[in-house]
């Protein structure tokens, strides 16, 4: 019973929340059936697809270029800095990325100042498609680079020896050895990046420059918070779920396939193409250009933020920090609790060989949450609750619940494998010794589970700390989290205050990830 009850409760809770949100939206969407301007909705979808496709393509190209250059150049001054910057850029909250882009590329940013110094004013172009693409590139190219680099570094040394023996020129090496690896890795990472950009919220809200560049996620937010139009929100949500589901199908396959651990061989130094003048030149350009694109915006956060650190000493920042923590920490624990309950139930079923299918379904439940976007879930819960109680009055619990559910795919993926491993390794021994109940948990599960639990908790807290959409959706004037405050400061163009809040938020999220990394061992590497 201990094995099943918490899991069944968790499953019922998730089903009830997601199910009632969906039904709530559909009922609210019933209405008179006039869904309004198809040309607008069609445009939103068209622009989202174009934007996400361009973002994905650019991220993959830049990511692959950086990864190749890093794979070829295993030793140069600044390599550790670049690797660290790639890691940091992928975990930054989206709204902080917005600040970094504005601080560097904006008209009053570093690039704008430099070009004006040369007597050239390039005006405001950071709003609109260009700004959105830049921000998505800064967030996702480093992610692609890390995945590609791990795969390239794992190429077996035999390949390099053979290539050297055959005297393959750099172009042939790229075509026959690197390219197949890059293409193999591209499918999964492309789907992930496309989905992230297609449902992007904070970046599009802040940099889209009005309805001309939008996503369904932003349109759902606007339909309800601007116009109180649940009907349109429901239609947009259904469309988004349908499109995400089609996109996610290949991802679910990739997620469920346990990827073989890519072990870096450390033998890239054997690559015969590192001596060629062409690759030397290309790598130099890529590492300087690509490196600057990633490092300079991060540096802007640190430089602008630390010089404006005095602006943090106002009550509203302290209150926002307290609210963010009061939401992030419970959301993290709730997410881990749900994941643990689900994984325990899944393990119980999996160990009975006849129930394996059912066990797979539980894993799928955790993943399917990715399809129900944060704002779809928020809008649905709002529609259900509003006849009973004002959702604004219970905003904080609602934000905690939605954030916890949103982190579930990640927390579940941390917790499920070691839990299963513990049973596989020690289950029979524990059975034969008659170890049951709490001692079984302490002796059998805890040693393997401790680190993944901490990793899952810190990741979930970090995700929740960076959330803008859900907090902005349920929040009214009084409820201000750090990302909401940052968004307000950015909109009001109070750059110094935006800088210091960006730095504070980045440090908080980074601290979470550093704790995760400290405890991660092998598990952390596998999730990224």
């Amino acid at each position, binding site marked *: 019973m201990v094995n099943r009850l918490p899991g069944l409760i968790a499953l019922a809770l998730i089903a009830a929340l997601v199910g009632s949100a969906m039904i709530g939206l559909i009922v609210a969407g019933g209405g008179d059936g006039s869904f309004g301007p198809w040309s607008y909705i069609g*445009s*939103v979808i068209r622009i989202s697809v174009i934007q996400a496709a361009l973002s994905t393509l650019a991220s993959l190209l830049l990511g692959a270029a950086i990864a190749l250059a890093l794979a070829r150049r295993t030793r140069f001054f600044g390599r550790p800095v670049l690797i660290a910057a790639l890691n940091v850029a992928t975990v930054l909250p989206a709204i902080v990325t917005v600040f970094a882009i504005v601080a560097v590329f904006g008209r009053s940013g570093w690039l704008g100042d430099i070009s004006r110094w040369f007597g050239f004013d390039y005006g*405001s172009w950071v709003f*609109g498609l260009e700004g959105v693409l830049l921000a998505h590139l800064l967030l996702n190219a480093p992610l692609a680079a890390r995945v590609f680099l791990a795969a390239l570094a794992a190429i077996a040394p035999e390949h390099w020896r053979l290539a050297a023996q055959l005297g393959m020129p750099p172009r042939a090496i790229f075509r026959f050895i690197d390219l197949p690896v890059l293409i193999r890795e591209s499918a999964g990472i492309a789907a992930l990046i496309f989905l992230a950009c297609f449902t992007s919220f904070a970046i599009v809200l802040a940099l889209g420059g009005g309805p001309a560049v939008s996503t369904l996620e932003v349109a759902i937010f606007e339909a309800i918070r*601007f116009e109180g139009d649940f009907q349109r929100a429901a239609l947009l949500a259904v469309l988004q779920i349908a499109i995400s589901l089609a996109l996610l199908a290949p991802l679910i396959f990739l997620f469920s396939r346990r990827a073989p651990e890519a072990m870096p061989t450390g033998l890239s130094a054997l690559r015969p193409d590192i001596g060629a003048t062409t690759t030397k030149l290309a790598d130099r350009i890529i590492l300087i250009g690509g490196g600057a694109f990633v490092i300079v915006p991060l540096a802007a956060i640190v430089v602008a933020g630390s010089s404006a650190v005095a602006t943090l000493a106002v009550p509203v920042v302290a209150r926002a920090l307290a609210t963010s923590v009061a939401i992030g920490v419970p959301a993290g624990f709730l997410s881990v609790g749900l994941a643990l309950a689900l994984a325990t139930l899944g393990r119980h079923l999996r160990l009975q060989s006849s129930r394996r299918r059912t066990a797979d379904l539980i894993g799928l439940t955790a993943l399917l949450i990715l399809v129900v976007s944060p704002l779809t879930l928020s809008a649905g819960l709002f529609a259900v609750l509003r006849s009973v109680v004002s959702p604004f009055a219970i905003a904080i619990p609602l934000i905690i619940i939605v954030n916890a559910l949103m982190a579930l795919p990640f927390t579940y993926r941390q917790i499920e494998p070691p839990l299963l491993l513990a049973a596989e390794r020690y289950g029979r021994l524990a059975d034969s010794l008659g170890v049951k109940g709490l001692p079984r948990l302490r002796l059998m599960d805890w040693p393997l589970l401790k680190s993944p639990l901490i990793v899952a908790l810190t990741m979930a807290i970090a995700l929740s700390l960076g959330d803008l959409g859900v907090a902005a959706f349920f929040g009214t*004037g009084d409820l201000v989290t750090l990302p909401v405050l940052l968004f307000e400061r950015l*909109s*009001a*163009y109070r750059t110094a205050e935006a800088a210091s809040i960006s730095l504070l938020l980045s440090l908080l999220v980074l601290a979470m990830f550093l704790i995760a990394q400290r405890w991660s061992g092998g598990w952390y590497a596998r999730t990224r």
Partner: protein
Amino acid sequence: MRTHIIVAIAAAAVLGTTLAASAQDRPTLTVYTYSSFAGEYGPGGAIKENFEAECGCFLRWIETGDAGTLLARLQLEGNSTTADIVLGLDTNLIALARQTGQFAEHEIELGALDLPVEWTDEIFIPFDWGWFAFVYDSATLESPPTSLAELIADPDGPSVIVQDPRTSSPGLGLLLWMKQMFGDEADEAWASLSPRIVTVTRGWSEAYGLFLEGEADMVLSYTTSPAYHIAVEGETRYRAAIFAEGHMMQVEVAGIIAGTDQPELARQFLRFMVSDGFQSAIPEGNWMYPAVVPADGLPEAFAALGQPPTSFLLPPEEVEVNRRAWIDEWLAAMTR
């Protein structure tokens, strides 16, 4: 040791109850308004001080973005709203506001108002008015357009920042202005202006802030905005472009929430709203024309302001019937 703690707790409890009791003696009036009204530079602070001096109450401003957001929030909150008064809607939104059924009649005998239109509404009372206009920096934009048609038509014309008509009353005002000027071709006009719209902001404050940072040549604001720069900064370079076709007008209003638990206090506030204690804070706080000109007249800076040759104001009902369709038309034109 333990007795000390008990004494301390008891003292704190007594103190706490006393404070709570004295707070209860003074009722709180909660007013929803747009952010630039209650914000740091708005008239909210002075008005709060003046009203609290005579009401024996607390006045609590709740800022909610711009006027459109204000109304959407009220609709979403329904009967559970904590607002006693909503201040900052305009005539273009009052028909929609009336439809929500959340407002009560004001039942106040209004004296003479200094409005360019006659006022008979039984629910809403005006507190200020003005003309929408594009404001520019004459130091950087030497020859501003002299008509809306010129602004729209010239592909090399000035860049602009406007507000979203779904969230902002100036944004909605411009939408109606365009509709008034171009009728069925308004969507063409928007599509023609669209490449020069640097960004569409949610509220007036964001737009004006971006403009002052130099992000665009012109910003949708009011003919009265330059008065701020003249009076506060002694700066005359900011001007409002006066358009030959005439300007859309705005009358800003407030109303009482039907479910308020402070109906008397709310009425007292609305009466106060058309008195000197409130109106004197409007010209050099909200930078609009007061609904009742205060005893010592309009400030000097207002004398220098340009005035449009013609004004438009659409009947609220006409706006309400078409608002949704026109916004959808705008959305479609902007995403073309």
